[in-house]
């Protein structure tokens, strides 16, 4: 058990290192002087700044030394300076991490809870209304670009039914205590989380339905029914718990895609997270920030994968023993 966890942690560390090397290579491979790439192509970097960058990154030294310097500083939590925001990249990212995690967690929670329930409902009657809904939803969820769905919601709620705010995270005009601030953020969260969640709601409902139908044909379900276990118990406990496993695995594996989706959704709703930061720093050619965000998102994905593996083992004792 401990050996396996240790092995997985080592493997995760190797992946993190590999991502850092990739970041370094991207700067080197980009056309132009790496110092200019790091300073950002704002044209405004003074000679002193350029000299400081050259010295700090060791750009006059051999490539391997540069890589070593880069890795050494990155592992100490120094991902460089954003010359556009004039702040250390790590600070900048940490200040934007919260909103993104809030958005992703809400969307994912919504998609998982509603999606699995809907899929379970659909599996009771493969020709019923719930099943048709799952089919339509999964087609729309897969085919509609997430940013377009968001914009359609903006039109709907911004012009036709002004129920929810369509941009930002906090109302600057509103003042008040903690509770009213929390409610304000929750109010702003509705549309972005709904937009992002719908895509995954569609996938999870379809996946749950498919895996429920498969599980319901299994011998142990027949045994449960033969023993006289109520239909509710058969569905809710015996089948559902087992059918959940592929959903959890897929949800965990998709974390990278969800973060990518969040970039688009944040841009649509001006949500002040990593996605908008990524977009703004790309427009500003602020590469240290952009690469820092890439690194952090990858880190989140790696952690999410570790957690998924852990949760799958909790859900399925068969996995806990071997492999």
């Amino acid at each position: 058990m401990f050996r396996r966890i240790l092995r997985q942690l080592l493997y995760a560390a190797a992946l993190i290192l590999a991502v850092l090397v990739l970041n370094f290579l991207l700067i080197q491979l980009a056309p132009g002087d790496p110092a200019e790439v790091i300073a950002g192509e704002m044209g405004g970097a003074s000679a002193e700044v350029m000299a400081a960058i050259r010295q700090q990154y060791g750009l006059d030294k051999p490539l391997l030394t540069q890589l070593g310097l880069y890795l050494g500083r990155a592992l100490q939590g120094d991902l460089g300076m954003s010359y556009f925001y004039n702040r250390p990249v790590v600070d900048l990212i940490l200040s934007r991490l919260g909103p993104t995690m809030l958005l992703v967690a809400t969307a994912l929670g919504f998609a998982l809870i509603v999606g699995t329930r809907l899929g379970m409902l659909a599996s009771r009657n493969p020709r019923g209304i719930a099943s048709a809904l799952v089919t339509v939803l999964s087609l729309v969820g897969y085919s509609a670009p997430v940013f377009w769905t968001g914009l359609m919601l903006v039109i709907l709620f911004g012009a036709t039914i002004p129920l929810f705010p369509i941009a930002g995270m906090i109302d600057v005009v509103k003042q008040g205590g903690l509770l009213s601030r929390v409610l304000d953020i929750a109010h702003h969260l509705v549309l972005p989380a709904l937009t992002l969640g719908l895509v995954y709601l569609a996938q999870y409902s379809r996946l749950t339905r498919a895996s429920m139908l498969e599980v319901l044909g299994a011998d142990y379900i027949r045994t449960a029914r033969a023993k006289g276990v109520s239909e509710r118990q058969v569905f809710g406990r015996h089948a559902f718990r087992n059918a959940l496993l592929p959903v959890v695995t897929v949800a965990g594996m998709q974390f990278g895609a969800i973060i990518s989706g969040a970039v688009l959704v944040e841009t649509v709703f001006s949500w002040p997270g990593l996605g908008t930061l990524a977009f703004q720093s790309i427009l500003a050619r602020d590469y240290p920030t952009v690469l820092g965000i890439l690194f952090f998102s990858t880190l989140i994905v790696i952690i999410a994968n570790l957690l998924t593996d852990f949760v799958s083992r909790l859900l399925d004792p068969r996995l806990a023993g071997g492999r």
Partner: protein
Amino acid sequence: MTAPARTTVPAARGPMAEAWDIFRRSPSAMLGLALLILVMGMTFAGPHLYQVDPFEIVWAPLTPPGEEATIPLGTDNLGRDILAGLIAGGRATLAVGFAAAAITMLIGVLIGAYAGFYGGIVDDMLMRVTEFFQVLPPLLFAMVVVTLFQPTLVNVALAIGIVSWPQTARLTRSEFRRIRTLEYVSAMRAIGAGDGNIIWRVILPNALPPLIVSATLTIGMAILFEAGLSFLGLSDPNVMSWGLMIGSGREYLLDAWWVVTLPGAMIFLTVLGVSLVGDGLNDAFNPRMRER
């Protein structure tokens, strides 16, 4: 003298003909095919039937659809013809979509085939590489690549291909692992066929059905990707595309719904067509899985 009586023998039917039969009978698959033919027809025949430059300013900005007879779908924020944009925009989107899917399949099948066929240390190494690419958030990585290098259509397609191949590689690998143990592969080996021969001429054709389905879904995904990148303004600004139209019109969406709604609907219908065809192919190749 009479000709000898002929008994009619039904023509031997290949698995492909059988699959097409199943495909043809599925209403949703045919709807998907119709949608795709419609979009392709609009993209390739459209420019000849409706000769308006999508970048040319033809009328007052933000003219609603139907207000001017010569501009059936209205104009955007610069006064450019929306219909002309929709027709021209399909070309870039479809080209990048197909090219990216081709790159994805090429890398994915190559890596998956070697990993699955050889197993052991080759498999281990290749799968580590695959896992590395799988933890990269796809859109963010593509965004970085496109900005560090030039946002040309080729680079956009390459960027999408680079982030999309791991799934194909995993699928190919599992198919190869399954097929390489089958008897006809052992038989080929017994008569002295080389590895390359077995991989590409024996196993690959038999692994094709799931790969074709996956290629279809990859096209849909690549189209969405291209749309996302150009919506963010990270695609080639000199080429009209549906995503670009949405991106440049989004500031006006509360006054002019058509500027973003129509190009988005085109993306939606195209990807819907692709995914319906993909589902249809899946059913056609795996008749037993149809209840899913």
